[in-house]
Structures are given as structure tokens and as C-alpha cells.
């Protein structure tokens, strides 16, 4: 199989365009504009130039020699953490911001969880001279103060989402409400492969570069595809990006969700934020609040293409606990000198847990972001653990 354009905005039974009527023409306009721009070599050339000269692509592939030895497998990292702004998010945001300019929009609206997408959007807005408003849950504003300040430094306005669980899902609600009111001048720069058509398709296409580069790099290093390709999944954009390079081959694709936000692991099909997909909800259809150590994965839903890949058995989805994630965060830091973001630490947590199953295999892991933003939070958590163990500060 290959990842083609979704027919009628659907990936199998998932996807669609479930938005309030005022937004339907905007989604149609965006779909048409994206299709034209994506086929326009000048547009692609401009985007590729920014991805290379501004964001620093291609991102390297790093073989983890020490950690591979420890785990008994061959671990390769796709280094999206080395992109400008520190995560894969910049790929999508540069594309959408260029598209917004092309459509004559003067303002970007975005949601953010951990702040990575918000920072990336604020960056692109600064680069292209666009106004920028980022919605962020009140809870996330508290735990990601550094990224809030970065966004403000970049000239964006950060607005607190105070409804519901006050995390990513509520930030999306607020961003959609803003977009309903400002649709004529604003582009909603959605940060994941979710939302109404064309977003899941468009955002995937903008992250496809991760998978295309990684496949070529793997060919060079391994002479073949890796046995396993894995990535963390909240909405699922970095995972779709890297999966898209390998979906037509034989590599096993494994998405890793947080146990407290496992849409596929614990959800059933539902409709929220514009598309039909797996969703954590109660028996009445009320959306449940996700709970994870990682603000970026603190989302009860998942992009519709992931639901489709799970339904047809092309990808499988595992979940890991916060404690496993913290251990993986420390493990990669200590063995490879790479401090990962908590989000991709989920994927490593699964690799570490599944090491026996994966023994001797080559495993490509999308290291979607760097851990600087999480250092404060981890310092607090690890200090607490050290005190409670009453030892001298070593966690080993």
C-alpha cells in the first residue's frame, strides 16, 4: 500500500469533515489551495529551501551504539530534535504558513500542548510577517513556562484555555472557536494529523519528508528497510511522517501512546474536532480527559489515518506508563548523550520493554523533539524520587 490522498476526505471509515457550517467553505478553500500549491514546483521549491536553509534539513540518522548494546538490538534515531525550534513540528508549520500567505491570510491561529507546535507556529509567523495567536491549556501553561516565554519572545500572543480539562483538547476547542469568528482573515495552523479534511492529509504530506529521508538514510546504512519503525503518538503527526516512508514496505510500524491517553488502546470510534477516529470517551459520548506526563501527548483522540492503519492491521499501537517514560528519558540521556523530549521517550520506553521481542532487529525510532522543555519538570519529578528513596541523588 502507499499513502495516497484520502478519498472523499476519508481513510477507510475514519476522517471526514465534521465542522460547524461556517467553517465548511474555509475547509474547502484550504483543500483546493493545498492541492494546487502541492502540485506547484515553485511552492515546493520555496518550502524545500526553507526546510534546508532555515530549519536545517535533512535531519541526521544516528546509530545508538552504546544503547543498542545495552538493549540487544540495533537502534537508529531519526533526529527531528535537531531541527530549528527543536522538534518535527517546524516541517508542517513552514508549509502551512507559506500556504496561508499564498491564500492571502494575515493571521495564524494555533493550539499547542507541550508548546512545541506553538513555538514552531510563532517562529514561522515571525519569519513571514504574520500575526499569531496560540491557544494553550491553563494547565500546560503552568508546566511549560519556558515555551510560553519563547512564543511571546517570537511575537505571538498566548491565550489561556480555561475550559474543560484545560489541556490540549481544550486549546483545540478555543482555536476552533477563534477560527469560526476570524475565518476570513485567519488560517488555522493545526499542529497534527487530525481535525477536518484536508488537515490529516495535508499535515501528513508536510511531514512525509521525515519518512522519505529516513528511508534513504536506512538504505545507505543498512542496505534495506529497518525491521521496525516506531514513534510516539498523540495526534500522531511525527508517527505518520515517518510511517509514510515505509508503509509500502515490510517494516513493522509501531505507534506508542501514553497509557493515560491511549485512543486506540482504550478508545472506541467517535467524532470530535472535525473527524471520526478512535476516541477516549464515556458510555454517553462525553470525551474523557487524557492524563499523561507529556503535555504533547495529553490528548484523548488520535489522527484518523492511525485509526485506519490500526483497523487494517498495517500498524500496531502500544501504550506505556509515565514511569516507563521517565526511565527511558534517563536511559537515552545517560547512554547516548541525547536528552529526548518526553514525547519520543514514549517510543523508547516501548522499545526498552519489548527488547526481547526485538532482539537482534533493527529499530528506527523517530526522535521527534529535544528534551530542553522538559528539564524543569523532570528535575522536580526526579528530585522527589531521590528524596523518597533517601539516597545520594543517584537514580541507579
Amino acid at each position: 500500500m502507499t499513502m495516497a490522498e484520502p478519498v472523499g476526505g476519508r481513510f477507510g471509515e475514519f476522517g471526514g469533515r465534521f465542522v460547524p457550517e461556517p467553517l465548511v467553505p474555509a475547509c474547502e478553500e484550504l483543500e483546493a489551495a493545498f492541492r494546487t500549491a502541492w502540485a506547484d514546483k515553485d511552492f515546493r521549491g520555496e518550502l524545500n529551501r526553507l526546510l534546508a536553509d532555515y530549519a536545517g534539513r535533512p535531519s541526521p540518522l544516528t546509530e545508538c551504539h552504546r544503547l543498542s548494546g545495552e538493549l540487544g538490538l540495533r537502534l537508529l534515531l531519526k533526529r527531528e530534535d535537531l531541527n530549528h525550534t527543536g522538534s518535527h513540528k517546524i516541517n508542517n508549520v513552514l508549509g502551512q504558513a507559506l500556504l496561508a500567505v499564498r491564500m492571502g491570510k494575515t493571521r495564524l491561529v494555533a493550539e499547542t500542548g507541550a508548546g512545541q507546535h506553538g513555538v514552531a507556529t510563532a517562529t514561522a509567523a515571525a519569519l513571514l510577517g504574520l500575526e499569531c495567536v496560540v491557544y494553550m491549556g491553563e494547565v500546560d501553561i503552568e508546566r511549560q513556562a519556558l515555551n510560553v516565554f519563547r512564543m511571546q519572545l517570537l511575537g505571538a500572543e498566548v491565550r489561556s484555555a480555561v475550559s474543560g480539562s484545560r489541556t490540549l483538547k481544550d486549546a483545540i476547542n478555543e482555536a476552533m472557536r477563534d477560527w469560526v469568528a476570524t475565518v476570513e482573515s485567519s488560517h488555522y495552523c493545526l499542529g497534527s494529523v487530525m481535525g477536518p479534511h484536508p488537515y490529516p492529509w495535508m499535515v501528513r504530506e508536510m511531514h512525509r519528508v521525515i519518512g522519505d529521508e529516513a528511508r534513504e538514510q536506512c538504505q545507505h546504512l543498512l542496505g534495506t528497510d529497518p525491521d521496525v519503525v516506531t514513534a510516539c503518538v498523540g495526534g500522531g503527526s511525527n508517527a505518520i511522517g515517518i510511517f509514510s516512508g515505509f508503509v509500502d514496505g515490510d517494516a513493522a510500524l509501531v505507534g506508542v501512546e501514553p497509557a493515560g491517553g491511549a485512543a486506540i488502546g482504550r478508545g472506541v470510534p467517535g467524532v470530535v474536532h472535525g473527524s471520526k477516529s478512535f476516541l477516549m470517551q464515556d458510555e454517553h459520548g462525553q470525551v474523557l480527559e487524557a492524563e499523561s506526563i507529556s503535555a504533547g501527548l495529553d490528548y484523548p483522540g488520535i489522527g484518523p489515518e492511525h485509526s485506519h492503519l490500526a483497523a487494517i492491521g498495517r500498524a500496531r499501537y502500544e501504550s506505556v506508563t509515565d514511569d516507563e517514560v521517565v526511565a527511558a528519558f534517563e536511559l537515552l540521556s545517560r547512554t547516548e548523550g541525547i536528552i529526548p523530549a518526553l514525547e519520543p521517550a514514549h517510543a523508547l520506553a516501548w522499545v526498552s520493554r519489548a527488547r526481547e521481542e526485538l532482539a537482534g532487529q533493527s529499530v528506527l525510532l523517530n526522535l521527534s523533539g529535544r528534551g530542553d522543555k522538559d528539564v524543569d519538570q523532570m528535575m522536580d519529578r526526579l528530585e522527589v524520587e531521590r528524596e523518597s528513596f533517601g539516597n545520594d541523588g543517584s537514580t541507579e
Partner: protein
Amino acid sequence: MSADPGPLEAVLRARRSQGGKALVPYLTGGLGDWQAALAAAADAGADAIEVGIPFSDPVIDGPVIQEANDRALAAGITPLGVLDALGRLDIGVPLVVMTYYNIAFRFGLERFASVLASQGVAAAILPDLPLEEAGPWTEAADAAGVETVLLAAPTASDERLGRICGRTRGFVYGVGLLGVTGVRDELASSAVLMAERLKQITDVPVLVGVGVGTPEQAEEVCRVADGAVVGSAVVRRMLDEDGPAAVGKLIGQFRRTLDRG
């Protein structure tokens, strides 16, 4: 143009043919003494009443209705709880359920439609279910005899408005402005324009809501529209715990103002 309009459309057409304007308030199910408030609204002259089934993520609603949703959910209301109560209610006006699609989807579309019908609910509004996605629901609703009211927005082309008016039942809900539900200081110019565009296209009753918060604003939009939907202003009264009496008083003010035209 339905040969045999459902009970909601029949009531609204009758109001129009008598030279009057329709008044449709919105109340949140499960919020405070909401059943008494429904009765008070009907007594004060509402032609039909929209009852919201609270949803955790109401993306087209502003702060007032969000708060009403949160409070009602915290008080433990469920979709079936709202519908059971509506079935026991006898207030003499058609009831319209307004909720988000996931509530109906999780319930099961056919089951949701048949429960609406069995509880005496005339119609449903699902604001995040646009025309292109509405097929499975409208099929179930049509089969159960439930009227599906579609929204029409200022951003739509005339061609799109025509298709919406062709598929809507009961009335066409003209969205008065680009934005979420809530009271504004003035009626947006887009509200009257929306009504004019719809009136040129359709014979189905045209009601305008979103941003219609005072009797004067309702009067202004009803110079063109066949009626108005009033939500946040009514729900505000319930949040302030003035209760059903305050709701009745407010609806009475709207009624008198619309009737003096």
C-alpha cells in the same frame, strides 16, 4: 418544500401565515430547574424550544453555554436523562434537541432518532454535522419522523445555501454572525443579510440565531427573518440562578417586542 411538514415546521409556518414572528429560545438540559424553565418559556410565548444535551467539547458555543454545559455535566446529566425528562413534559410547544454529533453517534443514530421520536421531540440540530456528513443521520431521522434543522452561515455561497435549504426540515437556522454563540452589544449586519439571502432562496421558515441577545435585536432581524433563536441571553438567566421565573420574564419581553411589529 415538504408536502407534509413535520410538527415544528407546521407551527412555524402557522405563525408566519398569521403575520407573526417566531420565537425559539434555547435552554441547556440538566441545568438547574430546567424543566420548570421550559414550561415558563412556553407560557411566556415561545413558539418552540431548543433543548441542549450537554457535550464535553461544544466548539461553536461561547462562554455562557460552555459554562452551562460544564455545570449540567458536573450535576450528572446524561443524554438519556434529558430525553426521559422531555418525554414526561407536556408544555404544548414543539421541542427541538440541540447537541453535538458524537452524542448521537455514540448513542447509535437509529436508536437516537427513535428515542427522540418516542419522547415526543419534533426535531434535532447537530451543529457540527454539515450537509456533506449528514446522510447517515438524516436517513435515520427521516425514518423516525424527526425533523433535522440545518445551519446556514454567512460564508456559504448561494449555491450552497440552496442545497442546505433543500435538505433542512422544520426551519433553516441562519447563523447571524461569524463567531460562537453569545450576546453582543449590537446585531451584526451579517444577521439581516443572512436572512435576506435565505428568504430569496427558500419558502422554509428562516430563523436567525447566534448573536441575537435582546428583544430589540430580535425585532431588527425579524424585519426580514421569520423568527429568531435566542440562546445565551436565556441561559445567562439560568446561570444567575434567577431560575424559571427570570426565563419566563425575558421570553415575555421578547414576545411583546416581536408582537408589536
